[in-house]
């Protein structure tokens, strides 16, 4: 039984509590019912049972590389195109941010900077770090990394803000020949970056971090045992 009430109770070390993978028990990713993996499908909802997300690290890294590559055109190509009295002005994400900053609208500038520039980079970086920790290339502090993963998943969708801004501006500003706003190719590229990073975060299996911890704890015990 877990600790009831909301408090932590006594925390046990990894290795003291049975783990699902050791007992061959898997929680259904849809309905959370725990059944033996040998059953193949969850009895309650029919979804596939698996101990770990399939090819988690490979998939996550693949999505991250694709997302990082798309990030280049997303920032270099214009996200918005304004035609005012026959003069066409293309603006990229960075130019949009600078425009707000220079005109004194610091709060919006910060929102744009955070959502479109900071969050995607941090998200890709954080997930790469998580993959590295799960593979053992980087030292693994499970608690911190679990938090990083949770924050990454939470913040990911907020990068879509810029896409919605483009959508609204395009629709709102249809003032005939005076001023017209059209979405640029950068908008599509950026939307794809957000989608790819969202897929990357959902492909990553946080249980792999604790697998790594358990593996290292076991190695340490073997080393001290053989002395």
């Amino acid at each position, binding site marked *: 039984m877990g600790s009831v009430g909301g408090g932590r109770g006594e925390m046990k070390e990894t290795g003291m509590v049975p783990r699902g993978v050791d007992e061959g028990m898997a929680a259904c990713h849809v309905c959370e019912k725990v059944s033996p993996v040998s059953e193949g499908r969850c009895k309650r*909802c029919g979804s596939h049972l698996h101990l770990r997300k399939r090819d988690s690290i490979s998939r996550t890294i693949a999505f991250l590389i694709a997302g990082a590559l798309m990030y280049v055109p997303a920032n270099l190509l214009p996200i918005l195109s304004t035609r005012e009295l026959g003069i066409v002005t293309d603006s990229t994400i960075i130019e949009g941010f600078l425009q707000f900053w220079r005109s004194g609208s610091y709060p919006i500038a910060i929102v744009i900077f955070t959502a479109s520039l900071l969050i995607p980079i941090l998200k890709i970086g954080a997930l790469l770090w998580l993959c590295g920790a799960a593979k053992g290339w980087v030292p693994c502090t499970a608690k911190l990394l679990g938090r990083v993963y949770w924050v990454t998943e939470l913040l990911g969708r907020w990068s879509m803000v810029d896409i919605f801004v483009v959508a609204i501006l*395009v629709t709102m500003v249809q003032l005939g020949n005076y001023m017209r706003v059209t*979405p640029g190719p950068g908008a599509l590229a950026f939307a794809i970056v957000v989608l790819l990073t969202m897929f990357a975060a959902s492909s990553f299996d946080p249980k792999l*971090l604790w697998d790594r911890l358990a593996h290292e704890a076991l190695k340490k015990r073997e080393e001290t045992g053989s002395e």
Partner: protein
Amino acid sequence: MRKRLSILSWPKPRGGPHHAICHYCDSLHVAEPIAEGTRVNCVCCGATLYQNRPASLARVTAFSMTSLLLMIVVHSAPFITMDAGGMRTTLTLPSAAKDLITEGAAIVGWGVAIFTIVTPLVMAGGLVYVCGPLMFGRIAPGAKFVTKWMSRTEPWNMVEVFLLGVLVSLLKLGSVAELHFGVGFWAFGCLMFSMAGAVAAIDKRELWDRLEVAEGR
């Protein structure tokens, strides 16, 4: 009287000892019924395993029905009206999505349509369809299928992100033209909170346990 009891407590499904596995650290726990308002945490990493939300079915059904009603207002009433250069433009979400699709930015247009119109509709509609009958201990036909698809749709519900996008756009346009908020805008703000309330009202495990028990009747 027996029928009414099903909306009061989280029923225990039939069968042997039920378990819960921590999503983060894979620790195996024995899952037992808990009192309303309490939660169970993993003994290894402290993450929440499941919680028994008070009046969960009643609240989720109420918030979902509210969301559906608000959606009717949001998508039919004017969202924002802009006066500039003698021209007046009115924006509603479906018209915005349609314009984007015809403007040549089809994917962005479909994106707006899916993330702000379709997904909240699937979530709220699905929750009403599944949890309404569950209040009486009954299971609607295809309820499990609907619940499965709702879990898949949940991460793609971006109503609050859209609202932030609206605010940013308004600030950008505010210097160029005169803007008036329509009923649709305020309804959208309420929709955001209503959807958040609906999704937070019930624990996933509880919903599935109730479905399992209702099916077994």
